[in-house]
């Protein structure tokens, strides 16, 4: 019977091409608008660390101003101080832990290998991090591995390259053991990681949630020898005399991002106790003037807390749903008009033995066909919408303004669902009308 209904639907649509085109267009535009924003919001709220959501935690310590809490939803600074990071790294409770921040500098091949000088130096986006970074975030190595054990505390000149940097510098060959020149200093390549671009960049939400992730990775022990100031936010609340780099490292400025991996409840409990003890100790030395408070947020909670999907995005979401609603009301009105015009035919069908259900189904199938057509065109409109967003956002949203299969299917689903919803009332209306009225001649 479904086949029969579909052929009837197509015939009916062909009979009123303009009205049908209007309905398809209305649904397509509604779906296109809704799916564009839904896709953006969906892509923006993805969690690249989903598979470790139960064991990874972003750490916050409240070392802030006694007079007022830090001005963000968590009421604690997002990052920790250098000196706290160094102390925390000594704990052996977490399975893995990472202290890190964003940095960068000019990189080039070692002059001895850059014989023709054909490779111009370029500025590489760097992540200065303790060595567990790769293990904690589950980043597979293409070649080699992380740097040696003491690199977290002493200035070891070893470097890990991203796949694209390795392609750029070494044409994708296994470069482990080769030397590159970073900021005028030779570094030995110890590893090359596979392409890794979480989006949103959950491990570093301070520096543009959708920016590219780092091109090179450098050991955490380099700070003093390079006098590293981070490329990222440094926040402070306390007036401090900073007269040397050592003062910067010992200050209350927060600029280090800190993550831990805690696998069991027992481990988590112990780590909480450890943090409590740590803060108490610091309080005894006159630091941490606020009430004792720290934060351990799972990746999913971290994304929420950092409001990766910002107010504008969420507002557009609501707006586009309202838009879809208007398109639906439009479709209901047009479908109602179309179906009621065919009421006489429905009356004849009823006289010839069609049950109410049959008449209802037939018209619902017709709405479904409109929805399917609308959905397919809606996908095209969504792709166009996303392309527009990419262009308007000047590259900032390239990683999220794209559609995956799930979203394409959702688009078709949304279109059919919408049109079935839109068709529900008109189809019900026509299946309820009394057939005998339409069978009379006058």
């Amino acid at each position, binding site marked *: 019977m479904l086949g029969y209904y579909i052929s009837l639907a197509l015939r009916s649509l062909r009979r009123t091409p*303009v*009205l049908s085109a*209007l309905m398809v*267009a*209305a649904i397509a*535009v*509604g779906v296109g*608008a809704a799916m564009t924003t839904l896709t953006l919001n969906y892509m923006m709220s993805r969690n690249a660390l989903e598979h470790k959501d139960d064991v990874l935690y972003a750490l916050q310590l409240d070392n802030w101003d006694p*007079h007022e809490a830090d001005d963000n939803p968590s009421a604690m600074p997002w990052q920790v101080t250098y000196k706290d990071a160094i102390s925390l790294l000594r704990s052996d409770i977490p399975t893995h832990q990472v202290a890190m921040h964003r940095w960068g*500098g*000019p990189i*080039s091949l070692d002059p001895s290998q850059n014989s023709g000088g054909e490779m111009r*130096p*370029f*500025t590489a986006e760097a992540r200065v991090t303790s060595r567990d970074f790769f293990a904690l975030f589950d980043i597979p190595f293409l070649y080699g591995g992380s740097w040696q054990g003491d690199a977290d505390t002493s200035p070891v000149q070893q470097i890990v390259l991203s796949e694209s940097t390795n392609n750029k510098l070494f044409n994708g060959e296994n470069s482990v053991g080769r030397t590159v*020149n970073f*900021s*005028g*200093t030779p570094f030995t390549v110890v590893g090359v990681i596979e392409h890794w671009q979480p989006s949103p960049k959950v491990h570093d939400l301070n520096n543009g949630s959708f920016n590219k992730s780092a091109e090179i990775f450098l050991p955490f022990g380099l700070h003093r020898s*390079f006098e590293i*100031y981070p490329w990222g936010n440094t926040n402070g609340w306390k*007036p401090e*005399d*900073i*007269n*040397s*780099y050592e*003062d*910067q490292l010992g200050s209350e400025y927060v600029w280090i991002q800190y993550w831990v991996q805690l696998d069991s409840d027992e481990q988590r409990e112990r780590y909480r106790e450890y943090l409590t003890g740590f803060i108490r100790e610091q309080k005894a030395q006159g630091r941490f003037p606020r009430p004792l408070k720290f934060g351990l947020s799972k990746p999913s909670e971290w994304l929420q807390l950092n409001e990766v999907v910002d*107010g*504008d995005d*969420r*507002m*557009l979401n*609501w*707006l*586009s749903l*309202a*838009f879809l*609603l*208007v*398109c639906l*009301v*439009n479709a*209901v*009105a*047009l479908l*109602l*008009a*179309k179906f009621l*015009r065919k009421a006489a035919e429905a009356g004849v069908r009823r006289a010839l033995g069609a049950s109410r259900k049959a008449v209802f189904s037939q018209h619902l199938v017709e709405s479904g066909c409109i929805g399917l057509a609308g959905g397919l065109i809606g996908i095209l409109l969504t792709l166009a919408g996303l392309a*527009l*967003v990419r262009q*308007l*956002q*000047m590259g*900032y949203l390239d990683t999220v303004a794209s559609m995956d299969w799930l979203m394409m299917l959702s688009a078709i689903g949304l279109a059919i669902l919408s049109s079935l919803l839109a068709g529900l*009332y008109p189809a019900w*209306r026509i299946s309820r009308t009394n057939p005998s009225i339409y069978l009379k001649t006058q």
Partner: protein
Amino acid sequence: MLELRPILSALWRHKISALLIAVQLGLTLAIVGNATVVIQERIERIARPTGVAVTDIVTAQFMPIAKNYDRLEAFRLDLDMIRQLPGVAAATVSRAPLTGGGSGTGLYTAPNQEIGATGGAQFWGDEHLIDALGMKLVAGRAFTPNDITEASFSSGWRPNMAIVTQQLADKLFANGEALGQSIYFSGEDNPIEIVGIVERNLGPWPNSHNAGSTVFFPAVMDTQWFDYVVRAEPGQREAVAKLLEEKLAERDPQRVVAVNLLEDKLDRYYAGDNTMIQVLSGVVSMLTFIVALGIVGLTVFWITQRQKQIGVRRALGASRSAISRYFLLENLMIATTGIVLGTAAAQIFNRFLASEFEQPALPLSTTAICALILFGISLAAALVPALRAANISPAMATRSV
């Protein structure tokens, strides 16, 4: 002759269809009204004067390849070279404003205070700063070469004078006499005299609620975070940008150089707002279009359905204009219902957006203008089919359908 009663009773028989159009118009008004205030607010925000010669400024940074590099020396040599370049009006080393990156500080009007700071964005620059940014000095003086110190963040240096924007001056000294007064950093007693006031500078973050409160200190800072701010003669910026790239690399090839137009950076900063404007404008126009099409479709449909009836009316003596008028009046009544519904819906929607997403309030005047436009569109959409209805021949009455 207004025949409202028969129209109303006919509409009553088609009440669901009529209501659907009204609801559609109402929802559209709610969306369009709210989108309009958001668009308006963003356009105004982007169009604000920045206080800076945005369209003439080129910025340049470099990153030295060597580890221990004498940046201050490079600044001196580069700036000497840049100021000689053709097309360059003025140049300094500071940080370019309006780019989304910079630093802020808290200022006090008395020494040794820690609570109740007035927030401001801070910049450092030499005696060319005001000229290079194209700012307008409204009181006091610019920095002179003697005022400038070479310093770094870890050197413990404190300024003894500052130039502030009019906005910051007014915030610090409500009596309007900021010039010559002293300001202080948090918990310090080192007085910083305000020697000059510039008309305006939106600072590093034009979208922050504090944008426009900006303070300038007389120093050349030895930091990674610097820009050569180069103001080109009008119309020369592309040429200057190209020259800069060339000459900076030429003077010292052992560094990575990046040259940008300030306007590009500002565009990038406003990309989110621009997206909002474009997307919302798109939504508004598409929505209006869809609703108009819907009205056309339904009016055409109703008219075809009532062809015979119209023929009978014509046969019984109704004039053409009476027929058109009938359908236009019908549309008018539906539109009025829709607009009334929509005005209420717009306010409700606006409350929601304002409380959830900090969007601006929707003034009644904006609603009224949007309502009027929608009203016009709705009538225009009904006009063509209504005029066509008048062309239906009275012979339609005798033909069987």
